[in-house]
C-alpha cells in the first residue's frame, strides 16, 4: 500500500468535489477499497472519507418505494422490516452476501461499486496482463483458471464476473441509482466490458452515489433471492437468481415476472427472455423449466465455467417454482 492523503468530507457537495481530485477514491465501509489497496490494485492518491456524512444512511420504505441512503449498512437494510415485507429479494440477497462482519461494515453504495473477484485482476505483481486494470495489456484469465468467470456479457477483452448480490436484486425490480444530478436505472449504471472493461459504471468525476431507489410492485412483494454456491455461507454465487412473481386472480396465470441473474454475467443480468416467455402462461414446472433455459441465450463458456450454463437455468426455475408454491 502506498502513501495517500486523507480527506474527511463534511458535506455531500465537498465529497463530490473531492472525487474530481487526481487519484481520489471515496471511502465508505472500506471492505472493498482496503482489500484492493492491500493487493496493489487500488492505488488512491487521496482517500475521501464519506462515513461521517449525516443523513446518508437512512432507509425509508412504503408500499410505493424504498429509498436507501448510500451509507446504509448492508446488515441494516437486510434486517429492515419494510424491506423484508415489500422487497424480500433485496433482504435475502443481502443476508446471503459476504459475512456478518462485512455486512456490518459495508454500505449499499460501496456494494454497487465492488470489483470483480477475477484472481488475475487481484494480483498485479504476478499477472501484468489485465485489461480491466491496465487497458490494452491483455487478459490473463482467458486460457487460465476460469471456474468463476462470466458466461454472459463477456467480450474479447474481459470475461470477469460481476460478483455482487444486491445489484442483481435491484435490476430485477427496476431500481435507480441517484448520483447527485443524474438518476440512472441500475441496469444502465452497470456497463458491459466491451472494449473498455476498465469502465464498469456510468459514473463521472464529481459524482457519487447518494441513494438507491426501488419502486414497489406486486412482483417485488412476492420475490426471492436464490443463491447457489459450494460453501453454504460466505462465498460469492456460482449462480443466483432474483425473482419476483405476480399471479392473476386465478392464482395460476403469471401476470408479471422479474428475473435477474447473478454469478454468471459481467454485470447484474436481467433475463427478459425468461420473463416474456412466461408472462401470461400458467405456472407449471415443465413450462417454467423450459422457459428458464432462455436465460442462457448467448452464453459462452471458457472451459471450467461451463457448469454455470447448466446451473443458472435450474436456479431460475427453482426460484420461480418456490414463489409459485407460496400462495
Amino acid at each position, binding site marked *: 500500500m502506498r502513501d495517500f492523503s486523507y480527506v474527511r468530507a463534511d458535506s455531500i457537495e465537498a465529497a463530490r468535489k473531492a472525487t474530481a481530485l487526481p487519484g481520489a477514491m471515496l471511502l465508505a465501509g472500506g471492505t472493498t477499497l482496503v482489500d484492493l489497496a492491500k493487493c496493489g490494485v487500488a492505488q488512491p492518491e487521496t482517500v475521501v472519507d464519506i462515513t461521517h456524512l449525516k443523513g446518508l444512511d437512512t432507509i425509508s420504505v412504503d408500499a410505493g418505494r424504498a429509498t436507501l441512503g448510500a451509507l446504509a449498512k448492508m446488515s441494516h437494510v437486510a434486517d429492515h422490516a419494510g424491506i423484508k415485507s415489500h422487497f424480500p429479494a433485496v433482504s435475502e440477497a443481502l443476508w446471503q452476501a459476504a459475512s456478518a462482519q462485512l455486512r456490518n461494515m459495508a454500505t449499499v453504495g460501496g456494494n454497487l461499486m465492488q470489483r470483480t473477484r477475477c*484472481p488475475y485482476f487481484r494480483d498485479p*505483481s504476478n499477472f501484468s496482463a489485465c485489461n480491466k486494470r491496465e487497458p490494452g495489456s491483455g487478459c490473463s484469465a482467458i486460457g487460465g483458471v476460469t471456474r468463476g468467470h462470466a458466461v454472459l456479457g463477456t467480450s474479447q477483452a474481459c470475461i470477469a464476473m460481476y460478483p455482487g448480490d444486491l445489484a442483481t436484486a435491484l435490476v430485477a425490480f427496476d431500481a435507480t441509482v441517484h448520483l447527485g444530478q443524474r438518476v440512472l436505472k441500475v441496469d444502465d449504471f452497470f456497463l458491459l466490458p466491451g472494449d473498455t472493461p476498465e469502465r464498469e459504471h456510468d459514473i463521472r468525476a464529481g459524482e457519487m452515489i447518494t441513494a438507491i431507489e426501488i419502486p414497489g410492485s406486486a412482483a417485488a412483494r412476492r420475490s426471492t433471492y436464490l443463491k447457489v454456491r459450494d*460453501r453454504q455461507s460466505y462465498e460469492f454465487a456460482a449462480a443466483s437468481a432474483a425473482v419476483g412473481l405476480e399471479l392473476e386472480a386465478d392464482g395460476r396465470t403469471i401476470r408479471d415476472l422479474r428475473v435477474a441473474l447473478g454469478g454468471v454475467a459481467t454485470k447484474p443480468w436481467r433475463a427478459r427472455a425468461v420473463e416474456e416467455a412466461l408472462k401470461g402462461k400458467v405456472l407449471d414446472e415443465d413450462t417454467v423449466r423450459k422457459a428458464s433455459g432462455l436465460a442462457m441465450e448467448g452464453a459462452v463458456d471458457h472451459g471450467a465455467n461451463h457448469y454455470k450454463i447448466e446451473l443458472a437455468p435450474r436456479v431460475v*426455475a427453482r426460484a420461480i417454482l418456490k414463489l409459485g408454491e407460496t400462495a
Partner: protein
Amino acid sequence: MTVHNIRHANTRHADSRHGDASDGAVGGRLSRVDGPAKITGAAKYAFEQQLDGLAHAVMVEATIAAGTVRAIDTRAAETAPGVLLVLTPDTIMEIKGASDWLGNPPTQKTYSPLARTVTYSGQHIAAVVAETFEQAVAAAALVEVSYDETPAIVDLSDAKAGDGIPIDVMTKEWGDAEAAFAAAPVRICAAYNTQREYQAAMEPHGLIARWQGEELTIWEPSQWLDGMARTYAEWFGVPFENVRLVSPYIGGGFGSKALALAHSAVAAASAKMLGRPVKLVLTRPQNFTSYGGRAATRQTVTIGAGRDGKIQSIVHRGVNETAVDGMWVEPLASVTSIMYATPNFSSKQNVVRVNTVVPGAKRAPGENPSAFGIECAIDELAYEVGVDPLEIRLRNYAEQDPEAKKAWSTRQLREAFAAGAERFGWSKRSPKPRSMRDGHQLIGWGVAAGTYPVRRAYGEAIVRILADGSVEVESSSIDMGQGTYTILAQTAAETVGVPADDVVVKLGDSRFPRAGVAGGSRLAGVMTGAVYKAATSALDQFVGLAISDPRSPFHALQANTLVVANGRITAPRGDGPDVSIAELLASVGRDRIEATGDTMPANSSAEDRYKNYTTIATSVPHTEGDYSRHSWCAHFIEVRVDEDFGTVRVSRVVSALDSGRLYNPKLAESQWKGGIIMGIGQALLEEGIVDRRHGRIVNNNLADYLVPTNADIPDIEVISVGIPDLHSSVLGGKGVGELAIVGVAPAIANAVFHATGKRVRDLPITLEKLI
C-alpha cells in the same frame, strides 16, 4: 513464557456450572485453562511483542515457476523512504547449512534462504527491511527482478511430470497379490485423487528476531521449540543454549509450524545485520507458497474378493507430488495395509517432482489420503457384491496387524462400528443408491473407518511444589489449542494431590525442560508421562521430608507414608496432624521442592537427549515389541445433495473413536470435532487451484480457498469407545488430534454415492461434478 493459573481466571469461580473437583483430575472435563486469557485478549501472540527499535521486513517473491534470477535491481527500493536494508542472495550475510529434522547433516556448507534458481512461483528471492511495515511494503514493490525462465512442471497431471521416482522403502508386499487378484471372482479397480490442500491457520507464519550479542531470541509460533532452536543455532553458528524460542500461544498450526523456514532465516539474518530486532509476518498469499500444504496425491486401489465380499488381494499404487528441490513422501499405503485382513498385498509408491514449494504435514499426513483410497474402494466392493457397507467392513475385520503380523495393543474398531451405527440408526438405511430423498434433496448415508499410529517419543518436565502450596509445571512443549496447558495441570494436580486450580503450567519457552515435536499426536502421551514422573518424584521428596525432618509435625508418627490430597497432608489412617502443603513446607523451612522427570530410557547420554528433543529420529516405532499400536475411528455421515444444483451439504455426523484413555474428554471431543470439520472441508471445498501456464496457485486467500463455515457444519456427535492402552503410553492414552480427520472424506464420498448413484473419486466434491 506464559503462566496459566486457574486461580486467576476469576470467571471460573463465578460460574457455578464449572463441575466438581473431579474435573481437575486426569480424565476430568476441565475447561481450557488458557481459555480466559485468549478470550479477553490477555494472551500475547508472537507478533504482539512490543520491542524498542523494531524494524519490519517483507519478502519479495519470484513471479515465475522455474528459471533463474538474471538480475535484481534494488536501487529504487534502497532509496525509498524508511528503508534500512535490501537483501538479495548477494547481500544477505552468510548462513550455514543446518541438519534436517531427522538430524541428517547438511548437504551444503551454506544456506541461502533467498533463491538464485527459482523452482516455484512465490519462492523468496529478496527482502526489504524498513522502519515501518508500510514503508517496507512500498519499497518491496520497487525491487525489479529479471529472469531467464524455463518450462515448469505445474502438477501431477502435467505431461512433463512422468512417472516419478520410486520410493522403495514404501513398498509393502506379502503373498502374491497380482496372482490372487487375477484369480478372484470379484474384482474392482479405481483411481482416487486428492488435491493440494493448505493448513490455512488463522495466525499466519512469521517471527520477531532479536540479537543481544551472540544470543538470539525468537518469538515465533512453533510446534517444536527445541527443533527450531537447533536450526537457528546451526544457521548462525552459535551454541544451542544461545537461542531462545518463545511461543506461548499458537493460532493454529495443523502441522505447518514445526520447522524454521526460509523467511525465518531472513528475519534472523537481517536482525543480526542491522543490530535491531526485526519483525516479519507473511502475507496471506505468501502463506500459500512459503511452506507446503498437503501434497496432491493419486492412488489406484485394486481389490480381488470372493462373492461374499471377503478380500483376497489388495494391489495399491500411489503417487504424491514433491518439490523440485525437496523431498516429501506422503505415505499412501499407511491405512491400506492395516485396515483389512488380506492374505495378499502389494503396494508401491512414487513421488513426482513438480515446481512447487516442498509439500508438508497437514493433519494426518499419509493416513488421510490413504484412507480416502481404501475406504472408498471397499465401499465400491460392497455395492459390487451386494453387501451392506458396514457389514463388509466387519467381514474383513483385521484381528491382528496384517502387515506387522502382531497383535493390536488395543483395537476398539468393532466397538466403534457398533456404537456409531446404533446412534446413527444405520439399520434404517435403504441400501439402493438414490432411494432416499426429502423434496429436492437426495439423501445419502455413508460410513468409513480411520486410523492413526501411536507415535511415541520422550519428554522432560520440571514440577515444583511451592511455599504457598501451589504446584508449578514447566516444559518447552507447546499448546496450539489442543489443551496441553490443561491436561498437564490435571496430571500434576492428580499426581501431587492438589486441586487443579492450584497448578500453574508454563509452556512455550525453549529455556524450560525440553520436549520433542508437537506432531503426530504424540505430545499428550509424552508430556503427561513426563509430568507424571516429575510430579511423582516431587511428591516422594515432599512426603520423605514430612516423615523424616525432625521439624515436621509428622516426625513423631514414624509412618512409612503419608497421604497428600486436596492440598493437605495427613497420615494414612487420619490419626495424626492434618496440615496444608504450605504449612508443612513452612514447618520444615523449605520454600520449594523441585523435581525434574523425563521418560527417556535410563542411562541415556546427553547426546541422546539432545537428539531426542531436537530431531524426530528417536521416535519409537508403533510396532516396537510385541504390539501394533493405533487409534481407530468410524464415521457415519449423512449428506443432502440438491438434485438440481449438485451442492452437497453434510447434515449429520456420528463418529465413534478409540483414542485409548482420554486425559480430558472435553478437549478430546473438541479435537475430534475439529478433525471432522477439516475433513468436511477436504471432501467438499478445499483445493489449491493452479494456473497451468504460470504454475501459480491463484486462490491464495481465505475468500477463494474455501474452508468450512459454521453454516457448513451440522451437529457432530462423537462417542469415545477407547479403553486405557498401557502399551501406548504411561497413562494409557493413544492419539487424539490427527485421528478424526482420517476417514471423513471417504465417508462423505460414499454418502454422496448413496445419495446420487454417482461415484466421485476426485476431491473435492464440488457441484459441477454432480450436475
